[in-house]
């Protein structure tokens, strides 16, 4: 047996055993955010491993394209992204350098979770960057609506079944269980928020439109003068006037923003500043999507209860 035939034999062996071995292993799923990782975990159970690139307590617009993330993508079978250009500043170079054909944009192992969900703030008419860092494809913080969570779970279940047709029933069962738990939880959250329906609030960045829409809050202003533009004195004064005029008592701030300006607005208006994590992992209590909504809803309800008791 000469060297060449040994090499050919080895190649054949690798080709034959490669996919067979892969089928026994768990599907390696990488998500861009912890929210998607949490939902993937709900659906995939013990048939998959899940890892998120961004941490829940960091601004998902400004994740660094670290080479260690390239290694994660290199080994991924499936990449799930938030989409709507949330990750435009850091994900493309990671995908390009991953050397992984499966997770390239449009490939089988690339899942844009925003397909099939309800997207708000889709700009109509002309948009320019004078409006700040607007997302032309709509607001990417759509996961903060439990119904969208359900849609994301369905997409993930479909995709996982595509990879592992043998586990289709398993994924479908877990999807149904997740859906049932979500329905129950959502009833509870809506009931908790119901007494405060229509309450006007202010948020720092435009992270909460889907949340407010689902739970009946009315966002009337932002600490940022424009998306992605830090607070300016002029805008802050206008906001204080507006909050006094409309008697707004709540400011929601994402954990990665500075509290200096929100605190000064709160002092001027008597409002309460709440640090509400928009993502799983944003605070230690928010270990999964249920924890995330439990934490946020309870925090807001308690603050509104206190404000109305005053």
């Amino acid at each position, binding site marked *: 047996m000469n060297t060449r035939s040994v090499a050919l034999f080895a190649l054949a062996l690798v080709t034959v055993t490669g996919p067979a071995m892969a089928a026994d292993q768990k599907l390696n799923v990488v998500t861009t955010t912890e929210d998607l990782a949490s939902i993937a975990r709900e659906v995939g159970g013990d048939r998959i491993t899940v890892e998120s690139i961004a*941490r829940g*307590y*960091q*601004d998902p617009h*400004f994740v*660094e*394209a*670290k*080479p*260690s993330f*390239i*290694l994660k993508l*290199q080994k991924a079978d499936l990449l799930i992204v938030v989409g709507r*250009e949330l990750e*435009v*500043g*850091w994900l*493309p*170079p990671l*995908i*390009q*350098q*991953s*050397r*992984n*054909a499966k997770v*390239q*944009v*449009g490939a089988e192992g690339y899942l844009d979770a*925003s*397909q*099939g*969900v*309800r*997207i708000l703030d*889709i700009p109509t008419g002309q948009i320019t*960057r004078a409006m*700040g*860092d607007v997302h*032309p*494809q*709509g607001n990417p913080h759509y996961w903060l609506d439990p119904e969208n969570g359900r*849609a994301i779970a369905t997409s993930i279940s479909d995709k996982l079944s595509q990879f592992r047709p043998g586990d289709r029933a398993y994924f479908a069962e877990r999807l149904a269980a997740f859906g049932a738990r979500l329905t129950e939880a959502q009833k509870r959250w809506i009931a908790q928020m119901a007494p405060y329906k229509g309450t006007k609030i202010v948020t720092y960045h435009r992270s909460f439109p889907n949340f407010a829409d689902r739970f009946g809050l009315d966002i009337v202003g932002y600490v940022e003068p424009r998306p*992605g*533009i*830090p607070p300016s004195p002029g805008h802050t004064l206008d906001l204080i006037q507006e909050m006094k005029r409309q008697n707004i008592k709540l400011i929601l701030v994402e*954990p*990665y*923003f*500075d509290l200096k300006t929100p605190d000064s607005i709160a002092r001027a208006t008597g409002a309460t500043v709440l640090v509400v994590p928009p993502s799983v992992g944003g605070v230690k209590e928010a270990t999964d999507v249920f924890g995330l909504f439990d934490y946020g809803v309870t925090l807001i309800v308690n603050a509104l209860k206190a404000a109305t008791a005053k």
Partner: protein
Amino acid sequence: MRQLLMLQLVVALLALAGADQPALAQEPPPPGSVSPQGASADPQALLREIARLRQELEDVRKTYGDRLTALEAQLTAVVASQTAAPAVPPAPEPPAPAAPPASSKVFNPDVAVIGNVMGTAGSNPVAPSPALELHEAEVSFQAVIDPYARADFFVSFREEGASLEEGYITFPTIPGGLLLKAGQLRMPFGKTNALHPHVLPWPDRPLVMRNLVGGDDGLADASVSVARLIPNPWFFLELTGEVNRGQAGDVFSANQASDLSYLARLRAYQDITESTNLDVGTSFAMGHNSAGIVGDQDLGRFTTRLYGVDATVRYKPLRRSIYRSFVGRTELVWSRRQQFEGVQPAFGYYVSGDYQFARRWYTGLRYDRSDRADDASVLDTGMAAVLTFWPSEFSQLRGMYRRTRYAQSKTANELLFQLQFAIGAHGAHPF
């Protein structure tokens, strides 16, 4: 149900249309009737025939008229019942469509333009800069070509004219875990040479890069580049190899077609914590230089070898990532340039630190020290302090105080101002 009704209606209308003049004209006369030709002999018979036809026409009109009225009534009833009682609950909102395609534009490449306005005040007896200039306007075109490759073009417009800063095809997923690029490329010698000017933390390039690694524009050449990740259980390790035409800046000069230049780079990266990471690399480049050219002849056949070591340490606390960060950098370069006078063993380095102290504010310091490539006995040193303000992600204002001591004798004190702005596609943030 509704479809069935529509079908009936359509059939009825067709029948009506069919029953109109053409059908009447074409149908053979009923049996027993007298043919017009036969009746022509008897005017009375003809009149009777006309009367009979009139009656027949009237019957037809009445029959179909009644049927039409009935159908109309039926249709009105159906429509009324549908609008009055929406038996089906309203359908859920349709999911948001994918990115709306803008007709043929969807396949156009991402286009962006970056303007770089530079102003200089102060004195520099060795390398003076204009008081004010549009230093560069860089236009980029980037798109995926097909399932196998993507293309990136960066055209640089300056006062001297237009040039292709980079233009290459990338095959990101060829077998063997290789990343293949071909075209005009900035060479990955060290950390900053591969970076475009607008992503540097300074308005200029460090002295060592200007003296030893290709002047103000750095090393760029027609290249084929292959990069592979080296699997290991500990850290990110990437080996890059390049074959170049051999014509890059003032370092390499291809005096024959076979005077190729070669580059190799090994880069290692490791996260120390989630906030801190270390990026180290070592580079080697080799090619012919122009020192041996006398007249049209390359008598010397001299080469230049470059050796480099670079290290970058980054700190960015994730919870405060948009407000605080620190990047420390250093690059050390050894140049071995063969000349008629012998090999010039030049060495240079810089050390810099850049600290972000607010969301839009960065400040930094840099120390420069470098021999000259063609005369290693001449040493230039420099110090610089820089302050950068980002009004938004798409514009940047920068000021730098730079003190350079050329050949340990002539001193330049300069204030550099830089205004950069980007329009078009949102590019990736540099790392």
